[in-house]
Structures are given as C-alpha cells and as structure tokens.
C-alpha cells in the first residue's frame, strides 16, 4: 500500500538526478536588473483580475457588452473587446511591459486600451487645424511601401527626409515594424493612434533622440505633454525604473525639463503633414515648432 502510494505520488515530483544548469526555474539570471520571478508577474496579473471583480457594482452587462452581439469588425485587424477585457488587457500589458521592456506590442496594447478619451481630444485638435484635417481625410501612412526612398536619398543634406533616413539607418529600425491597431473601437481613432505610432519616429528625428531607453523616455515625456495619452504618461513615469542612476540623474536634471518645455511650447506635432515636408530643412522645421536643440549630452549618444 505504501509503495503504491509512493509510486502514485512520484509522477508529481521531478525525476531524481535532474540538477543540471538548464533545470531550475528559480535560478536567477546574471546581468542587469534581475527580472522578477514569473510567479510575481502571475500574481500581479491575477490580483488585477480579482480586483476587477470589485467592478461588480457596475452591472455585469456593461462589463461584458461589446464582445458578444452586435459589435462587429470595424476595420481589418479589429478585435471587439468588452470593458472587462479592456481593463484586464490594460493591467496585464502594463505589467508585462515593465517586466519585459522588449515587448513593444504590450506598450501598443496599453496605449490602445487606455487612450480612448485622449485620442478623441487629439482627433478634435487635428480636425480644427487645416493641415491636420487633411491628414484625417487622406489618411497617409508612413511605410516602406509608401515612402519613395530614392527621392529621399536624393534630398539635400539637413532636410527632414535625409535626417529621417539617417535616423532609421543609425538606429537600425524600420517603419514597418509597427503592429496594426486592434483594440480601438472606432475606426477614425484607430487611424489616429496608428498615425501617432508612425509619427513617433519623426519625433525622434525632430528631438534628436536615439532609440535607447533614455532617448525613448525623453520622447515619451514630450508626447505625454503633447497628447495626454495615459500610455505616454505611464511610460514617462515608470520607464525610468529600468534606468541606472547615472542616466536617471541626467534625465531628471536636464532632459525632462527640456522635453516638457518644448512639449508645451510646440503646437500639436500631429498636425504636420510630414509626407509633404521631406524637403524642408530640419533646422527650419524645428524653428517653426519652437523646438530648441537638445542638451549636448544626449546628442553624443545619437
């Protein structure tokens, strides 16, 4: 009887003698800020799930509406989601984005699920401006297929087109790696957030920031002031958690005040029809927007 019980219990334990370096999920990985154990991430997620049960003062119908009857696909790639799903997605993607900063898709999902109000404000701002209204009407996309690379190469040195190409080369990024919008339940707002993502690279060029962690945080601060998107605000506030103290010092003392100043001074950067301004010299564009040169330190990194 005892052997039967032992034999029955044995499948629940790993076989003896398995102590190789590949085994053991509790082994901490070397280098950099250690990641929290998967257990913490799981606890974070399930805590937010159970917390959302306190939303039950909202009728369950409101929580679940949108995913069952009626809410069809408004645009290709659209996935209709209920309020509960949006809450869970927002919490989960925020946690995952902090846990693994390389998950850019999580940052995108966070932006889509939390940005409804800010996107509406941004869209209205764009509608009021003539150039912005044109963008909303014509819906241009910045993709490798729509960019005329030869023409951009042939532009004079110092123009927006040239600087943008240089930025793509130096940082080894491509405009095609942006994920399509999925969780925004309005077709025009889905385009607005897509445009925001494509203009993000333009902002890197305008501000002269590289795509490392520091540069991204600076651009996030600028965007947070300009758009008020919760994802930008959260990224601006929590992004520095993953920086080392040296970068943090530079960030707080020089870069953030500069980014915030410029963000408040500049008009809405999403009203610019960048596709028609490739020939414009970058310096002139910066003057038009009131963007001063970045502090010397970060330019050395770019």
């Amino acid at each position: 009887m005892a052997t039967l019980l032992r034999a029955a219990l044995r499948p629940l334990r790993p076989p003896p003698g398995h102590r190789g370096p590949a085994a053991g999920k509790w082994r901490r990985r070397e280098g950099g800020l250690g990641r929290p154990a998967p257990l913490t991430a799981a606890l974070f997620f399930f805590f937010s799930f159970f917390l959302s049960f306190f939303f039950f003062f909202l009728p369950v119908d409101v929580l679940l509406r949108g995913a069952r009857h009626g809410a069809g696909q408004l645009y290709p790639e659209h996935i209709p989601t209920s309020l509960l799903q949006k809450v869970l997605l927002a919490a989960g993607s925020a946690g995952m984005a902090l846990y693994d900063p390389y998950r850019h898709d999580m940052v995108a999902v966070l932006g889509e699920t939390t940005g409804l109000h800010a996107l509406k404000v941004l869209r209205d701002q764009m509608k009021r401006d003539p150039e912005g209204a044109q963008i909303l009407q014509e819906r241009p996309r910045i993709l490798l297929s729509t960019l005329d690379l030869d023409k951009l190469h042939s532009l004079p040195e110092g123009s927006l087109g040239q600087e943008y190409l240089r930025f793509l080369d130096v940082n080894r990024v491509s405009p095609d790696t942006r994920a399509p919008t999925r969780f925004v339940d309005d077709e025009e707002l889905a385009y607005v957030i897509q445009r925001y993502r494509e203009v993000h690279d333009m902002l890197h060029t305008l501000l002269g920031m590289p795509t490392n962690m520091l540069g991204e945080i600076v651009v996030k601060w600028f965007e947070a002031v300009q758009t008020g998107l919760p994802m930008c605000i959260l990224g601006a506030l929590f992004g520095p958690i993953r920086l080392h103290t040296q970068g943090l010092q530079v960030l707080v003392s020089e870069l953030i005040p500069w980014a915030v100043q410029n963000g408040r001074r500049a008009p809405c950067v999403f009203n610019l029809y960048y596709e028609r301004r490739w020939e414009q010299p970058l310096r002139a564009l910066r003057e038009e927007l009131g963007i001063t040169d970045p502090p010397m330190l970060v330019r050395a990194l770019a």
Partner: protein
Amino acid sequence: MAAPRSCALWSYCGRRWSRLMRCCELPGLRSSWPGGPLGARQLSQEKQATETHFGFETVSEEEKGGKVYHVFESVAKKYDVMNDMMSLGIHRIWKDLLLWKMRPFPGTQLLDVAGGTGDIAFRFLNYVRAQHKGKQKRQLRAQQNLSWEEIAKKYQNEEDPLGGSQVVVCDINKEMLKIGKQKAHARGYKAGLAWVLGDAEELPFDDDKFDVYTIAFGIRNVTHIDQALQEAHRVLKPGGRFLCLEFSQVNNPLISRLYDLYSFQVIPVLGEVIAGDWKSYQYLVESIRQFPPQEEFKEMIEDAGFEKVTYESLTSGIVAIHSGFKL
C-alpha cells in the same frame, strides 16, 4: 473502406446539425438551415459536408488542417507556460489523473497522439520507472538469503529501468515536437521515448501494435474525429485501451456561467499578454465549445468499434476522460 466512411461522415453531419440547433450563436450558418421537409434538409447537409468549424468560424475541411497547424506553430514556445496560467496549474492534476486511470505496468507500449510537448509521455515514464523500482525492491525483499555479491550483481545486471515499456509521441506539428524534444533533453529522458511526425487521421504505424493509445487535449483539433477514432482502433492490440482527455461540457449551470466568463473574457487576454497571440487562444476557447459533450463523444467512440466505453468528468465537467477497450 468507402461504405463505413460515408456512414461516419453522414452521422457526423447529422450530429453537427443537432449541435447547431442547440447553440444558436452561429449567425452565419443559421440562414442555411431552412429546417424544411426532409428532402431539403438532406440536400443542404450534403452541401455542407465539405465545410467544418474552426472555432466559431466556418471553413472548408482542407483549410482547417492548415489553420490548426498554424495555431499550434505559433503557440508552441509558450504552450506550457500558457497551460499553467490558463488552468492555474490544474492541468497537471488532470494529466496525473489520466495516468492513474491508465495504471501502466512495466512492459506497456504507449502511443501518445497529439502529445507534442510530451507531458503525458514524461509522466508515463516516471510512473513506469517507479513501478519497476517497486517491483525490484519487492523481489529483493522476497529473496532474503541472497549474499551481498548476488545483490550487487542484480543491480549491475539491470539494463532496462523501464522494464520494457516504450512510449511513442506522435504529433502533426513539427514545432510542438521540437519543444517536446528540448524538454526531454533538459529533463534527462532518453530511454524508451520516440518522437514521430504523423497525422492522427492516418497514423504511420502497423495494425495491432500498442497497448494503450492516449490523446490529451488533441482530438478536438482533428478535422475528422471519427477517422482518428478508427485509426486508434486499428493500431491498438486486442485488449488495448483507448484513453482520451479532453475539454467537455460543464454540468453545473452556475459553474458553467463562470467558466464561460473566464474562457471568453480572460483567456484571450492572457494569450495576448503572455504569448502575444489573441487569435490562437480565441480559437482554443471556441473549439472547446464546438466539441461534442460527454455522452455524444462516448457514442462516437462506440461507433469506431470500442467496447466498455466509459467516461469520467473532472472539475465538474470542464474536462472528461473517456476510456474504451478494443476487445
């Protein structure tokens, strides 16, 4: 094999029609079922015979295989992590229960179909190894008058810690098999394990080869379930056992509502956050709803020629283990 095949197809269509009338949440198909006189109904059934379900979508049968392959190809890397997250680790208990029901002994030949990442196979090997060790100990204790040299020789002569058992893991998806092989290598499983790429509807094995055939959480992804069951009947030895662990219908209405809420609201979100793939996990929960309930699946197993078919619902019907014998 034309006659039994068309019979199976016919009965499959009939069951699908009755299932459709039960779950009215398929707007696309409702219009094509006029439910008029018998002649009209049979005609439309024939036309729909080449179409099947992929979650709540309707696709052609040729398409379904490819789409399912694509789903598992993209989830393979995070398959085990997602299983733990989605079921809160309970899937381990379900798989353990399947093994305890199986009660393999040293010498059993197991075929684990759709066993991609090897969970059932590893548990089987552990179980058989433990059984074998227990048998050895009992033998030693029975022979009380052995000298030390004889005991040492007995241990040294031991070549097969599994006592002749073997498990063949068969899966249609290369990625899942790859992950399974990596896991086996990491955990040190070598002896008695074989990995075969094959289709459950057309197994690459001879007749009457295996003692036990298991399929855990795989049969609902097969395009023609009846063909898979017939293949299972073919490759089993007379006296062999068929075991299927699969998601099924929940019998308790309150738990059913909570389960639906969890399935449709939380699981795709988990899939998106952890694996970056919403659509695969949406397919997963929809395919669970499309699978026949316990009694119906039991009848399908009986149709394939198995006898003494029983089922046991676990966790109030979230999963069920169906068992049948080839006699």
